[in-house]
C-alpha cells in the first residue's frame, strides 16, 4: 500500500502539474480581459516540445545532462512527499533535509545547464537564479526546521505535519506569512520572475534550450510549482484533513488549486522587480523565517 502511494504521488504530480499551469494562464487571461488559451494548453506545449529533435547547441555533456537531472530531482522530491497526509514507503525512510537537498539539486541543475550553454544572457540569468536560490530556499528549509523544532524530530512526517499534530502557534503564523510572501519567488512568477525575464534576458538560463530538453525544464518548473503550492497546503492548512487517504488527496488538490489561483492573481497584478530590489525583500523574508524558528525554540 505505501509502495503504491509512491506511484500515486508521481502519477498525480506528472498528470496534474500542467493542468495547474493551465489554470494560472486562464486566471491571468481573465485579469487581462482576455479569453486565454485552453486549460489543457500546457499539455499540448509539452507534447510538442518533447516530440522535437534534440539539439546539443552548446556541444558539451553538462548542457545535455542538466534537463534530465533537474527533472529527476523534482521526481524524487514528489516521490518522497507525504501526499494525502500519509508517509509513503520512501518518505518514511528520509528526513526533511533530504527534501531540501533534492530541491536544491534541481536548482543547481538549472544553473549547470545555463553556465554550460555559454551564452551571455544565460549567464546573467544564472547569476540571478543563484541569488534567488541562495536567498529564498532558506525560507523553505526554515519551514521544515520549524516543524522539526516543534516536534523534536527531523523526520519528514513530523516536520511537515507539525501544525496538524500540535496546532497553530505564533511561530507557525509568522512562518505562514513568510512562506506566502516567498511563494511567488519559489514558483518564479511576478514580481520575482527575475531570472527568466524574457524582455531583459530572454528566458535567461533556458535561452539555448529547445525541444525535449526545454520541455523537460518546463515540466520541471511546473512540477516544482505544484510541489511548493502543495507544501503550503500540507504544512499550514491542517484543517483540510478528512481522515481518509483519498479524501485528503482531494482536499489537498483543492487547496493547491486555490493557491495557484492566488499565485496567478498576484503575478498578474505586479510588475517584475529588479534583482537588487528583490534581494532586499528576500533578506527580510529570511530574517522573518529565522525569527519564526527562534519563536519555536522559545516555545511560543
Amino acid at each position, binding site marked *: 500500500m505505501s509502495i503504491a502511494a509512491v506511484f500515486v504521488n508521481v502519477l498525480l504530480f506528472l498528470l496534474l502539474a500542467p493542468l495547474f499551469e493551465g489554470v494560472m494562464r486562464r486566471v491571468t487571461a481573465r485579469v487581462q480581459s482576455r479569453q486565454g488559451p485552453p486549460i489543457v494548453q500546457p499539455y499540448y506545449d509539452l507534447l510538442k516540445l518533447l516530440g522535437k529533435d534534440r539539439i546539443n547547441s552548446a556541444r558539451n555533456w553538462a548542457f545535455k545532462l542538466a534537463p534530465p537531472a533537474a527533472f529527476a530531482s523534482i521526481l524524487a522530491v514528489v516521490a518522497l512527499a507525504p501526499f494525502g497526509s500519509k508517509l509513503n514507503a520512501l518518505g518514511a525512510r528520509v528526513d526533511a533535509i533530504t527534501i531540501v537537498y533534492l530541491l536544491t539539486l534541481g536548482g543547481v541543475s538549472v544553473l549547470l545547464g545555463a553556465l554550460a550553454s555559454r551564452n*551571455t544572457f544565460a549567464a546573467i540569468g544564472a547569476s540571478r537564479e543563484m541569488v534567488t536560490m541562495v536567498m529564498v530556499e532558506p525560507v523553505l528549509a526554515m519551514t521544515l526546521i520549524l516543524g522539526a523544532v516543534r516536534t523534536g524530530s527531523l523526520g519528514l512526517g513530523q516536520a511537515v505535519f507539525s501544525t496538524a499534530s500540535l496546532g497553530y502557534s505564533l511561530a507557525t503564523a509568522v512562518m505562514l506569512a513568510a512562506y506566502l510572501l516567498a511563494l511567488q519567488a519559489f514558483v518564479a512568477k511576478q514580481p520575482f520572475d527575475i531570472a527568466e525575464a524574457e524582455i*531583459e534576458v*530572454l528566458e535567461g538560463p533556458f535561452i539555448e534550450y529547445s525541444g525535449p530538453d526545454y520541455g523537460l525544464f518546463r515540466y520541471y518548473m511546473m512540477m516544482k510549482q505544484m510541489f511548493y503550492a502543495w507544501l503550503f497546503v500540507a504544512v499550514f492548512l491542517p484543517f483540510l484533513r478528512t481522515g481518509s487517504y483519498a479524501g485528503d488527496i482531494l482536499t489537498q488538490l483543492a487547496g493547491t488549486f486555490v493557491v495557484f489561483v492566488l499565485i496567478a492573481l498576484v503575478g*498578474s497584478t505586479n510588475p517584475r522587480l529588479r*534583482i537588487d*530590489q528583490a534581494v532586499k525583500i528576500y533578506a527580510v523574508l529570511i530574517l522573518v523565517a529565522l525569527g519564526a524558528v527562534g519563536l519555536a525554540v522559545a516555545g511560543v
Partner: protein
Amino acid sequence: MDAIARIESELRRRLGADVKGFESPTPARLFVDIDRRAVRGAAKALVDLGARYMVGIGYDEIARNGTLGLVHTFAFDADHLAVALRASAPAAEPVFESITPDIPSAGWTEREYQDLLGMTFTGHPKPKRLVLADDWPAGIHPLRKDVPYNLVPPAAEDVAYQLDQAPPGTTTIPVGPFHVSLHEPEHFAVYVDGETIKGCDYRGFMTHRGIEKLCQTQVSYNEVPFVAERICGICGSVHAVCYAQAVEAAAGLRISRRAEYIRTILLEIERLHSHLLWLGIAGHLIGFDTVFMQAWRVREKVMWLAERITGNRKTYGMVLIGGVRRDITPEIRAELEGLLTALEKEVLVLKNAVIGDTAIHRRTKGVGYLSKEETARWSLIGPVARARGLSLDARKDHPYAAYDDMVFDVPVVDSGDVWGTLVVRVLEIFESIAILRQALARMPADGPLLTEVPEALPALRHGLSMVEAPRGESVHYVITGEENRPERWRVRAPTYANLQAVPQMLLNNQFADFPIILGQIDPCFSCTDRVAVIDARSGRRHVIGRAELEGLSRRPAGGRS
C-alpha cells in the same frame, strides 16, 4: 526689440561680414545665409541666445553652382520662432566645422551627411559611419544627384561595424540586432559591470529605406504624403501633415480653416492611440502584462474612431497638399462625441490603476534619470523633455493647423525619470480628448476640404515645418523643385533626437532597466486588422470581419472552433 531683430543684431555683431543675408517669409521663420567658416560660431551664438537645435539638412547643388548645401535649424520656442542657418561649400572640398562639440545632438546629422553626401566635419568627436550599411563601398554618396536612386552596389563579405572600445572590467551584452525588447532591428552593445550599465554603443539604420531619395527623384508633390505616412507605423499623419505644411510654407499657400481642423483631429487621434499603445508597451517592458492588455483593449476604441473617420485603422491617406481628402460629416461627429465620453471613462480607470500602483513606482521612479540642464543640452523633445521640467510642445510653441484655437494644457513634471514620462503621457491622453471635443464642436462647416493649388509651385523655395508627434516634435524641411517634386525633403522624426541621448540615460542604471529606459522614448510598430482572402479557384473575394478573425485566431490548430 522682437526676437528676429535681436537675433539678427547678435549674429551681425559676432560674425560681421560672414553673415550674408536674412530672409523672413513669416514672423515665425528666419533664414540666415552665412559663410561656411561661420557655421560653428553662428550655431554657438544661437545656442547662447537660448536656441534649441532641431536638425541639419544637407543638399546637393553641384549641377546648379558646384556646391553642397548645409542648413542647421534651431527653435526659439518661447519666441515662437524657427531659425535656419544656411551655408554651402564647394563640392571639391565639402568641409564644414563640426558643431557637435557645442551641440551634442548635431552628432547624427553630421555623420549622416558624411555618409550620404560626402561632407567632412572637422572636429567631430565620433565620425563613424551612421546610415550606410557596413559593406557599402566608400566614395559612393547616395544622396548626391549623380547616384541613381536604385543603385545596388555588390555586397561585401567580412565587413562589420567596429563597436566602441568597452570600458575596462565590463562585459558586453548584445541587445540586438534582434531582441524582444526592440521592435525593429537595431543593435545596442551594452557594457555592464555585473548588472550595472557602464556604457553603450549604438548601431542602427539597419532598415534605411532611402525614402527621401525616392521622393526627390521618382514621385510628385502629391504622392509624397502617402509615402510620408509610411515612414512610421504609428504617427503616419504626423509626417504627412508635416510634409504638406512644409511645402505649403515654401510655396506660400494658405489652406482652409476646415481642412486645418480635420488635420488637427487626425493628429490628436494619433496621439491618443499612440500614448495608449506606449502605456501598454511600458507595462510589458517592466513585466506587467496586465497593463499591456488593458491599455490595448482601451486603445481599440480609438482605432475604431480612426476607422470611422478615415476608413482605416492606421495610415489614413487623408492628407494632400492644400488640405485633406475626406470630410467629417455631422453624423460621424455625433458618433465620435459619444465614443470620446466612453473612452474618457475607461482611461480614467486605467489612469487611477497605473498612477497609484506603488509596484510601478518601484520600477520607474529614479530610473533613467537625466537632469533638466542635460536634457536641454541634448535638445531632447516630447514627453522625454516634458518629464524633465522642459515645457516644450510644438502645438503651443509653433502653432500649426488649428491648435491656435484650442485650449489645452501641456503637462510638465520635473522628476526627470521614466516615471515622469509615464505621468506626462497619461495626462496628455486627457488633453487630447479635450482637444478632440473642441475641434469637433468648433469645426467650421464651410470652406473647401482641398484648397486649389497652382499648377506649378515656385522652385527652390525653402519651407520648414514642425508637428508635435506623440513622441515629440517632427521636423520636415522642403526645398521646392522644378519637376513637380521636392528638390530636397528632409525628415526628422522625434526619435532621431531622443535616441542620441539614450546612452546618457542608461549610464549607471541596472541592466534590468534597459528595456524601459529605451522604451520611455517610445519605439513603434504598426498593426493591421483585416485580411482579404481570395479563393484562387473561383476568384471569389471574401473579407474576414473582426469577429471571424478573432474566432480564427482562437481556434486550436487543426481543431474545431
